[in-house]
Each structure stands twice: as structure tokens, then as C-alpha cells.
């Protein structure tokens, strides 16, 4: 039957729910370290390039020989936003602050900013990386203002 607001439409009955199983064998040390309260990434033993996000193969010299190095937790805010219209899989979340922070070694990281409000954010302010766990126990990292 045709509704007033909509032309004749076939509403598909075959719905699809997608959940991806993403291999992390080559970077599991990153996620393991988060659990232990450490923020690490890969450094190429061939050319010395440090990458974030971590990757086991060097994008510079293509060497497959990487070691894990500590990133530290001090950062400086580069830019930020406050996401008020959230995507469908985040509808249960309150609006969130997202920022890009520059670490001491110059690498940049994108993460939520917690423990502050939009009005208090300004580029250049000092941040610290902290570690969080989701309800199902998986780890992630956030920025908080450095005290």
C-alpha cells in the first residue's frame, strides 16, 4: 500500500548485519601493551622509521624487520572537534570530543579527549594518553588534559 509521504517502495526483507573479524597477529603487541598500560609502536630495524599506527612492514624501505618501541604518553593538542551527530553504531554514546595529538617524537595520534569540555580545548594544550577498557574487555586509548 502506498503511504502519503512515500512513493511505491519495496522494503527489502533480507537484512544484513556485518561484523568483521580483523586479524591483528602482526600488531597484537600494541593491543597487549595497552592492557599493560604502555603505549608502543613499531620501529623499522632497517631504516629506523617509526610508524603510527604500528605496522610490521616498513612503508619507507619495505623491510619486514620491526621492533617495538615506547611512544610515551605526553602529547600536545593539534586540532579537535565535538561529534554531536554520531553514527548509527555509536547512538548509545553521548556526543564525544575527538582530537589529534602530537607525541614527543612528532608522531600524531587520533583519539577521544576525555575529562574536559569543548570550551576548555585549545590547540597547543598539553595532553596525556590514558588507557581504557570497553565493557567486553578490549582496550583502547584516550587523551586527557595533562595536569
Amino acid at each position, binding site marked *: 500500500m502506498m503511504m502519503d509521504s*512515500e*512513493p511505491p*517502495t519495496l522494503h*527489502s526483507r533480507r537484512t544484513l548485519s556485518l561484523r568483521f573479524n*580483523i586479524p591483528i597477529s602482526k600488531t597484537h603487541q600494541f593491543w597487549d601493551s595497552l592492557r599493560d598500560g604502555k603505549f608502543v609502536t613499531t620501529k623499522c630495524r632497517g631504516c629506523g622509521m617509526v610508524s*603510527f*599506527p604500528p605496522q610490521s612492514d616498513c612503508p619507507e624501505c619495505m623491510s619486514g624487520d620491526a621492533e617495538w618501541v615506547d611512544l610515551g604518553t605526553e602529547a600536545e593538542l*593539534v*586540532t*579537535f*572537534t*565535538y*561529534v*554531536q*551527530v*554520531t*553514527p*548509527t*553504531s*555509536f*547512538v548509545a*554514546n553521548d556526543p*564525544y570530543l*575527538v582530537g*589529534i595529538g602530537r607525541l614527543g617524537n612528532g*608522531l*600524531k*595520534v*587520533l*583519539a*577521544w579527549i576525555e575529562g574536559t569540555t*569543548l570550551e576548555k580545548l585549545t*590547540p597547543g594544550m598539553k595532553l596525556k594518553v590514558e588507557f581504557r577498557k*570497553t565493557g567486553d574487555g578490549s582496550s*583502547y586509548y584516550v587523551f586527557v588534559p595533562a595536569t
Partner: protein
Amino acid sequence: MRQVAIVGIGHSKFGRRTDVNLGELAFESIKQAVQDAGVEKKQIENVTVGSAGGWYEESLPAVIVNEYAGFDKVGTMRVEAACASGSAAVRSAYLSIASGEAEIALAVGLEKMTEVDTLTSVELMGRAGSYVWEFENYGMTFPAYYALHAVAHMKTFGTTEEDMARVAVKAHHYASMNPLAQFQKEITLEKALSSQVVSWPLKLYDACPISDGSAAVVLASEDAARKLSDTPIWIKGIGVSSDSANLSRRDGYVGLAATVDASRKAYALAKITPADLDVATCHDCFTIAEIMAYEDLGFCAKGDGPKLLRDGQTEIGGRIPVNVDGGLKAKGHPVGATGVSMMVEVSKQLRGEAGKHQVPVKHGNGLVHNVGGTGHYCYVTVLSRDQ
């Protein structure tokens, strides 16, 4: 490489097109383009469909389109370059002719984004980056990616929310003169500034809408173009570039490096400078994106985008009219259709067929700037009335 021209153009009405399915929507612009070119369907050797996909039920849009429009035994594929998929389709068709493989080819840009609910559409665009590092834990959205740039631009150059709103007012003004545009009404600065915040500092009126639409161009070799058309529009250069998936790997956020690189390549191929352009379509998926585009494309110095806009230099009668068809912001942004829509608009302008929003054509050159994602892909195409 052989010379290639646009000899046929077609464009559907953009908007919430719940009246047509994917094939029907594509057909609207294909029929116009084929008739405008005056070609027989059987003369078309390649059909390339630009569509990012994911919003609609079909997995193989190219074959759906070909079956519906009656193309058989053609070279075909769907190409993906996110929001630049349309330009990627044109480039593929262009290369098939420039290389000597084909005489006549068709490029179709197509997207049908309103078959899923709005927040699912927001999610599909938010995943257009690096999923594990930007979406899984942090729920980035497309407005959020550009908001990061807006904040950096505001901090570095003193750009204001009002500067950005002015882009929206201009876009709606020109969309009201384009019957194919999604929005047909002018808006005020106050209305734009008081609209709902989507991802601060970007508000609803800083963002392009979710749209359905299609556009198509028929391309031909020099020999075929001379026989088919009195007003061929020559593709003088296509500059392409790209950037990192993760925004955290970029050097900075006051512009898009891929735009700078692609445009310099396009200008070099076409042997022109920005001063030789009569008109440009720029990728204004968000208002800040248009301001950054002015600067990255070399229409003004870095940081002077808001001033160029305030001075009216990007309006009809200004130094370089930009998005006088309404732009993505108000014409609508059916992702895969956008690049081809831009080719259609610039072709109309160079032919002198743009109607109410016609620009004065002095040099005979126009520019298509089409960005995929947040500067992940960039295609810049120079079109010219003169060979």
C-alpha cells in the same frame, strides 16, 4: 596520447529520489548524454560507472546499469575513489580513448544514498578513512574529519564560523538558479549560523546533504568528436593524487595536500595557470572544504580563502566563479555522481548553455576539482572549449 573530448552530457535531478531505483536513476542521465552526443549505443565501447556503493542493495552497479540501459558486450567496471569516483570513471574512459583502445566511451557517475536510514549513511561515510584507528573506538564521521580541518584553519588564519556560513549562502543562492539542484531556496547567514551543530564547529548548513543522483558524459577521440559535435569540450589534463588513510599521518590540517599536488599536475598538463580559468567546480562537501580548495588550487594565497569569498571574487562576475551550480553543498552530493556532475556543469558553462547561472567565458577553460574522502583521493581536471 590522443586528444579526447566530451561530446555528450546528461544529468539527473539530484535529491531524495525515492521515485526511481538504481538503474532507472542512471538511465536518466545516460539517455540524455547519448542523445546529446548523437551516438548509437552500439558505438560505445566502454562503460565505466563511478560509484562508491554501500548505500544501495546492488553489489554490481555497472552490470545493473548496463542491463537496464541496454549495453551489452562492452568493456565495463565500477570504479571507486570515494567521493571522487565520478572523476575516476571519467579518467578511466578518457584513458581508454587516449590510449587508442576505444573511439567512444561512456562514463557514468551514480549514487543512491537514501535507501538506508540517515545515521547508517553517516556511519558508511565515517568508515571512509582507517577503520581500526579512527572508527572502531572513536566513531569518526565525515563532518568530524572536516571539522578537524576547520578548527586548524580557524586557529591558524582566524577564519570564522561566519566565513564558512558565507559559502553555504552562496551555494544556496546559485542552487536556486539550477533546476537540477537538491535545494531550490536561498538561505540567510543567520539561518546558516543558527543551524544544529553536527560536529563543532560545523553545523547542518556547513554540510552537503545526503543525495541520490546520476550524471553521464560521452567521450570521443579527436576524429569521432569532430564528426559528432560542433561544441566538443576538450579534456586538457587530469591531475591525480592521494594521501594517507589515517589523518594522523598528515603533515597538517589547514588544507589538502592531495589537492595541491593534483592541481599542479593538471595545470602543467593543460599548460595553464589559475588565471586562465573562467569557472571552477570545487569539492565543497563542507563549507571549510571550499575555502581550503580556493587556497590549495592556487586561486589565492594560503589563508586568504575567506577574503576571496568576502570580496565576491568567487561569484559570477568575480575573478574565478566557483560552484555556481550550487556545489555539493546545495546541488547535492550523490557521492559517485559528483565528479561527473562537475564535468557536465563545466561543459555547459564552456558551451554557453548554463542558463541563469552562466559565467562569462573569456579564456575558454574550466576546472573540475573532485576530492575523495578527506583528501584521500584527489582528481583535478582541466576542460577547454578550444583544442
